[in-house]
């Protein structure tokens, strides 16, 4: 029994990752008996298992085993879809006792392989926990089940003139619990800050089933250690988030956006500085798109392109958004900025467009937000989500491309494109290497190359996507040994049996 299980494990994992598993605590696979026990906790339709007596086929749970990019594949036999905190707690109690590894899963849009099993861990998908618990239109405090989809929360509070403090391309699928678990950054961070600031409280089921109820809506609370912070960005390795209390800002009464075409990358920094100076508090996003990323989004029909002749020779683009309380006031500021940029002796920009309607506003955002999707349509993506000094954005993309070229890997059958885009305002670059297929050769050419490159700028190898399964082994490029040791102690304290999302963030 044990040996066949080992054999199936071996098949499931790429050899590279296998060598780290020596210190992994022994965990058990889900058995038919376990499923029978879960049936006492959950209704039948909340249990998807391929174990006998069920006649479900492995392909029926593919969507839970495979990640969004099609890069990471788990071999779980069982997916549970609890509807409330009590059920999650009862499931965890059982898994703790039985030493069954568990993967918490939200919208499964994570980009680092954190949301699918490495082996055959039990998947607990939060999609059925999708109720808004309360909303206070005065303070803006929103309390919701972790499984609420980000976009539906936005829609829920829109009539009250509030918006979610975060926004990202995956908004139609990702869940607030997943957002908190990954400490997602996204497109509004520049304006509203990170989830470490906007999350007011969390309800978490700990690995042994204990419910840690921290679901407060008060803004100030200096009573001891702020435990919720530990779960923000823990990627499901310390507990399952079941409820989130989050502060939502009032909806801006006027917002508009601009796409600027820049002749040279070197102009991004001066444009950014000028924009901050002119726009100050109304600047709500400043996104960078390099030429190849722009062309890719256009190619895949993401939003309407700018006039071709106008953008001839543009080396990169920036998308800038303003949000404020009064249209006339914002327009005046924006016009001032645009005039400065256009009428300088040596103009910093070639041209640009200013949205004239909500429809154009959305279309222009699509050009930026649609890049992630375009990349997946174009090929298989190696995604590096890094923090580096803004001035180095282009250098890093160019160096990576050159490196691949030297290795003979830059051609249609191997690496098709190397592109860069990201959140200038936060110093966060998305370096994407688009390949025809995932191969060990490309992998070896990229890692540790990219990590070492990032470390040479004292950057972070994961700005906002997390470490997941992809970068757990590379944590030391951005964190000291002392820090990693402290993290291990914290993990040990919360999860002594190592059942919570094993192999993610910290290696086994």
């Amino acid at each position, binding site marked *: 029994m044990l040996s066949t299980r080992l054999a199936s494990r071996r098949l499931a994992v790429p050899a590279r990752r296998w060598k780290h598993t020596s210190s992994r605590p022994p965990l058990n696979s889900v058995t038919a008996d376990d499923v029978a026990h879960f049936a006492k906790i959950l209704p039948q339709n909340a249990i998807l298992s391929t174990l006998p007596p069920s006649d479900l086929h492995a392909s029926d749970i593919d969507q839970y085993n495979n990640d969004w990019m099609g890069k990471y594949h788990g071999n779980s036999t069982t997916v549970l879809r609890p509807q409330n905190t009590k059920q999650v707690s009862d499931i965890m109690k059982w898994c703790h006792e039985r030493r069954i590894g568990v993967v918490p899963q939200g919208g499964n849009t994570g980009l680092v392989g954190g949301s699918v099993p490495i082996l055959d861990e039990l998947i607990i998908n939060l999609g059925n926990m999708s109720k808004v618990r309360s909303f206070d239109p005065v303070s803006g405090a929103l309390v919701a089940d972790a499984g609420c989809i980000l976009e539906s929360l936005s829609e829920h509070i829109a009539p009250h003139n509030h918006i979610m403090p975060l926004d990202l391309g995956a908004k139609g699928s990702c869940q607030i619990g997943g957002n908190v678990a990954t400490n997602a950054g996204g497109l509004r961070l520049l304006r509203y800050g990170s989830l470490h600031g906007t999350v007011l409280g969390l309800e978490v089921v700990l690995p042994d089933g204990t419910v840690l109820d921290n679901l407060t809506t008060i803004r100030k609370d200096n009573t001891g250690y702020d435990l919720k912070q530990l779960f923000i960005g823990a990627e499901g390795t310390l507990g399952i988030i079941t409820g989130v209390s989050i502060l939502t800002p009032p909806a801006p009464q006027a917002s508009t956006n601009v796409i600027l075409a820049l002749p040279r990358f070197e102009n991004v920094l001066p444009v950014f500085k000028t924009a901050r100076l002119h726009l100050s508090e109304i600047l709500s996003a400043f996104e960078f798109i390099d030429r190849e990323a722009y062309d890719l989004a256009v190619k895949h029909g993401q939003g309407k392109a700018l006039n071709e002749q106008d953008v001839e020779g543009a080396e990169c683009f920036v998308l800038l958004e303003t949000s404020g309380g009064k249209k006339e006031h914002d327009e005046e500021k924006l016009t001032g900025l645009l005039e400065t940029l256009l009428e300088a002796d040596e103009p910093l920009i070639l041209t640009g467009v200013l949205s004239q309607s909500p*429809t154009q506003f959305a279309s222009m955002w699509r050009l930026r937000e649609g890049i992630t999707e375009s990349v997946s349509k174009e090929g298989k993506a190696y995604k590096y989500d890094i923090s580096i000094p803004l001035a180095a954005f282009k250098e890093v993309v160019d160096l990576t491309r050159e490196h691949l070229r030297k290795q003979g890997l830059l051609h249609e059958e191997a690496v098709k494109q190397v592109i860069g885009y990201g959140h200038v305002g936060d110093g966060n670059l998305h370096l994407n290497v688009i390949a025809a297929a995932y191969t060990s050769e490309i992998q070896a050419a990229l890692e540790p190359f990219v990590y070492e490159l990032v470390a040479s700028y004292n950057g972070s190898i994961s700005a906002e996507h997390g470490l997941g399964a992809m970068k757990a082994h590379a944590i030391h490029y951005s964190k000291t040994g002392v820090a990693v040791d402290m993290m291990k102690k914290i993990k040990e304290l919360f999860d002594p049996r190592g059942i919570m999302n094993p192999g993610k963030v910290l290696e086994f």
Partner: protein
Amino acid sequence: MRPTAARLLNILVPVKRCVDYAVKIRVNPQQTGIDTNVKHSMNPFDEIAVEEAVRLRERLKDAVKSIKVVTIGPPKSAETLRTALAMGADSGIHVEIPDSAPSPEPLGVARVLEAIVKRQEGGVDLIIMGKQAIDDDLGQTGQMLAAILGASQATCASKLEVDVEKYVANVRTEIDGGAEELVCKLPAVITTDLRLNEPRYASLPNIMKAKKKPIEKLSASELGVDLTPVLETIKVTEPPKRVGGGKVENVDQLVAKLKEAGFTALST
């Protein structure tokens, strides 16, 4: 409306400021209309009309002498004119009506446009306008205007070519189940359909230039037109809420439900 001497085209494009297409419409509490305190933008069909005029100039070059845009609406409609100017029109006319005035009706608008056409030195050869405005969806103004002017008309255009030499417009129009090719003698009124083109973004340099382009302000009374509505709006309501379906366990229940709802089997 008479042809210009050297057969250089003067194009007129009427544009309307509407509640934006992306905004969710809500009826006001008095049930007299809709909540207009929301985002507005140029009627999408008018945007297509402006785009088409600008493309005509790009193709015909100097043969297009002028592109003039006109709007009839409250003070804020000036923004809509600026957008059209930024897309490439040369000058604008704003027939201003007070914020409090009721929305003008197709016949009134057609009369204002007629008066404007008659005032244009050099005449107007081509009027390109939306087939309808997405706020009231009336879809009559173009036809009325053509009739009043005694000009040719082609509605719901999906393709437009102008033969300056022959002084005709070759138009493909959308009709039920297909398309129709029309040759219209100029002057003509063409109304636009969605497939005609995809409007451009206004570029920043053009937005800046547009600020300096002239806008003439007029009133309906100066033009000798009475915009008092002839239609009376009695009440505006939302469509009935869709009631969600129910689930039945088996065919018998389904049949019972259907019977309950008044459906009976066909007698054979």
